């Protein structure tokens, strides 16, 4: 059996090959099983140690379910919109998982050594799909406990142990079915390339629908929207069907919930069956791409390279195409600003996500400002700044591209360390535009112009903090070790500090300054916040430039 000029008969070698592989890797399989057992043991210990109080509280709730308070009715009214929205988001996450990982993945070694052989794909891939489906169903059942607990602790779900158990049971079943549907549909997405295109196109609409459902939940909590809207939310898709049994057993209105549950089960079963049958036909290109992505992620994880991890995920989506073109700048100094705008144009979803986060941040800040509660405003201000920091980090993607490979900017007419300043311009401008409009509206409505002054100084601080993180060096290997303490190894602390330096130096001081400014009606704290904030923004710019210089120097 070597070189031949004649056609080669396709061998029936699947069973002996897989048997040989099992035999050769028996030790490895045993090692993996013991690894899984160890992690289950750690997880159980962790849950018992940190969740012991919650478990005993849950047990008490189970024995003596609380009576519904005044807010129970509000929670019940909001349940159709909120549970349907959560169901839709869960389904979307499971489906989008199939774009880069999917229920069926082969290790890189199997891709390299088996995919190009005549071994049948079905016996190779089907067990992996079934394992994913079982894991997903178990995870779904576990996740189902969360909404059940939320309903029961609000006094919904009956006043007997039996009622609570019934509610928890249907919540677990319906969530498990939703997860099963997601896994089955994910398998089909992996099998059919057209499904991937369809899913990418449908994602914005699905997110929009989930936002609308969230809006409906907020409306239902505040007032009484027409019942037909609840009906639409609950019957528009499997996410609503999954919510119905929980709502019905919590005392809400979903009279046809058994039908919804049957529909969900039938759809989940159909999806799992179709995906199971189609497993053998998953294209080799899809399997290769997924193995490559997972290998890159695994390498990034080992070296604590969070950026490498994010890049591997982003590359799994294929090359990004510019949605619109920008004319080349006439002056060379503008080239970096042009490039930054182009980077945002290439990923409109990032721009939209950053805008949404910035708007949420302004809304949260408005709530904090309205409370006028001094230190009580700390939490909403910190949340607003956290959201704002995330928006800033998303807007600094172009800076990250220069930090990924310092040679990339060699031809630019700037010193490398000055890039930290130049890269701040476009994100600041975008942030000001996105957050400025609602901030002006809020200020005018409240007759309080302090918000605008605080926004003006907060944006550069957040962008500066994001750039501090962008230009960080690789995690120093000498910090991997740490030393043993009674509560574990200390290596985790420098790692957390390295990871969160940007938010620590921007969000933390601004939280103190802004909450003090909002909590006082005198001009002093406001002036202090503006002046110190401006100084902090400059300091962060200098710090980011310093880090950029170190990064370049290696």
């Amino acid at each position: 059996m070597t070189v031949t000029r004649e056609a080669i008969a396709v061998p029936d070698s699947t069973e002996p090959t897989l048997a040989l592989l099992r035999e050769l890797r028996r030790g490895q399989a045993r090692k993996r099983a013991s690894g899984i057992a160890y992690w289950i043991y750690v997880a159980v210990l962790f849950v018992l140690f940190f969740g012991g109080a919650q478990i005993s509280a849950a047990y008490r709730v189970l024995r003596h379910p609380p009576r519904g308070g005044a807010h129970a009715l509000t929670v019940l009214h909001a349940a159709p919109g909120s549970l349907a929205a959560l169901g839709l988001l869960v389904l979307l996450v499971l489906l989008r998982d199939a774009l880069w990982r999917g229920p069926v993945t082969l290790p890189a070694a199997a891709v390299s050594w088996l995919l190009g052989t005549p071994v049948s794909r079905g016996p190779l891939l089907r067990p992996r799909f079934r394992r994913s489906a079982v894991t997903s169903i178990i995870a779904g059942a576990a996740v189902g406990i969360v909404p059940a607990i939320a309903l029961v602790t609000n006094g919904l779900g009956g006043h007997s142990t039996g009622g609570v158990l019934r509610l928890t049971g249907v919540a677990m079943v319906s969530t498990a079915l939703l997860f099963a549907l997601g896994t089955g549909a994910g398998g089909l997405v992996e099998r059919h390339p057209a499904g991937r295109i369809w899913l990418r196109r449908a994602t914005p609409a699905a997110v929009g629908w989930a936002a609308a459902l969230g809006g409906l939940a907020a409306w239902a909590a505040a007032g009484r929207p027409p019942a037909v809207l609840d009906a639409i939310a609950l019957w528009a898709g499997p996410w609503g069907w999954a919510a119905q049994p929980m709502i019905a057993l919590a005392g809400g209105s979903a009279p046809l919930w058994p039908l919804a549950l049957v529909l969900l089960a039938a759809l989940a079963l159909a999806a799992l069956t179709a995906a199971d049958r189609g497993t053998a036909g998953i294209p080799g290109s899809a399997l290769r791409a997924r193995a490559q992505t997972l290998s890159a992620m695994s390498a990034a994880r080992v070296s604590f390279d969070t950026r490498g991890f994010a890049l591997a995920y982003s590359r799994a989506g294929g090359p990004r195409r510019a949605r619109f073109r920008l004319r080349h700048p006439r002056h060379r100094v503008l080239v970096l600003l042009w490039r930054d705008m182009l980077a945002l144009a290439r990923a409109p979803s990032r721009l939209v996500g950053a805008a949404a986060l910035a708007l949420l941040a302004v809304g949260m800040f408005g709530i904090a400002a309205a409370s006028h509660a001094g230190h009580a405003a700390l939490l909403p201000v910190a949340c607003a700044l956290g959201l704002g920091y995330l928006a800033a980090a998303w807007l600094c993607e172009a800076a990250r591209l220069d930090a990924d490979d310092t040679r990339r900017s060699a031809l630019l007419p700037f010193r490398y360390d000055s890039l930290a300043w130049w890269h701040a311009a476009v994100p600041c401008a975008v942030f000001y535009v996105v957050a400025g409009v609602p901030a002006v509206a809020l200020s005018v409505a409240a007759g309080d112009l302090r918000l605008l002054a605080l926004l003006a100084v907060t944006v550069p601080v957040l962008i500066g903090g994001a750039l501090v993180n962008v230009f960080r060096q690789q995690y120093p290997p000498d910090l991997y070790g740490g030393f043993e303490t009674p509560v574990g190894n200390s290596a985790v602390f420098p790692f957390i500090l390295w990871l969160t330096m940007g938010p620590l130096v921007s969000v933390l001081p601004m939280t103190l300054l802004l909450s003090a400014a909002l909590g006082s009606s005198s001009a002093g704290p406001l002036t202090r916040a503006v002046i110190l904030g401006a100084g902090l923004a400059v300091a962060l710019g200098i710090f980011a430039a310093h880090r950029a210089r170190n990064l370049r120097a290696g």
Partner: protein
Amino acid sequence: MQAADPPPLLTLTEVSRTYDDRTVLEPLDVELAPGRCTAVMGMNGSGKSTLLRIAAGRDTPTTGQVRYEGRVVTQDDIVVRTEIAIVGDQVSAYPDLTVREHLQLVAVAHGAGRDADDLVDRALTECRLDGRADALPGSLSSGQRQAMFLAAVLVRPRRLVVLDEPEQHLDPAARRWLAGLLRAEKQNGAALLVATHHAELALSIADQVIVLSDGALTSRGAPDAVLAEISWLAEIR
């Protein structure tokens, strides 16, 4: 003077490849017959690997088509997986399997059955891996790793062998051994498509050389003529 070419095994007709608006391979025709070798040369990024991936069904051409004995080539086609051997797409190995075990796996997957051990022994000897048969991939040098990938071709049946820079990581003596190995493959009737940077290797094994530059075909013909024509390749010689 060469004998008349036998009918082609692999035919690439007007194949091109673009990513977004970037053309990495301009329309190109290639025919490959049993017992013949075509070497593809060019600078890094000239489109050699793209051409080889398309020829092996690992990538889909933007225009044109690839046919293997009349059937459209896709990487999932069972005939393609049975008859076309590829070197250059292995990026990973089982960390817990030895060199011998990797080769056994390939041999058994291609239906070697009881002959697997003999085939593996012969391939190990041929690729000068006898002393490393029980080594794990992590302990191999890059040259030995490349030899392992070449040995994986020898333990399976093949009519067409696609090799992407097989001389990578090999020292001069090993490159001479590689040239001998590929000549033997050709003499036994395999069709070879080889991307290489080494003019000497191309000279010693190829019947035809294709030179690519920025995805475009710049020269094609007998190795001597093409290598004499292209100055930068001549310098390598």
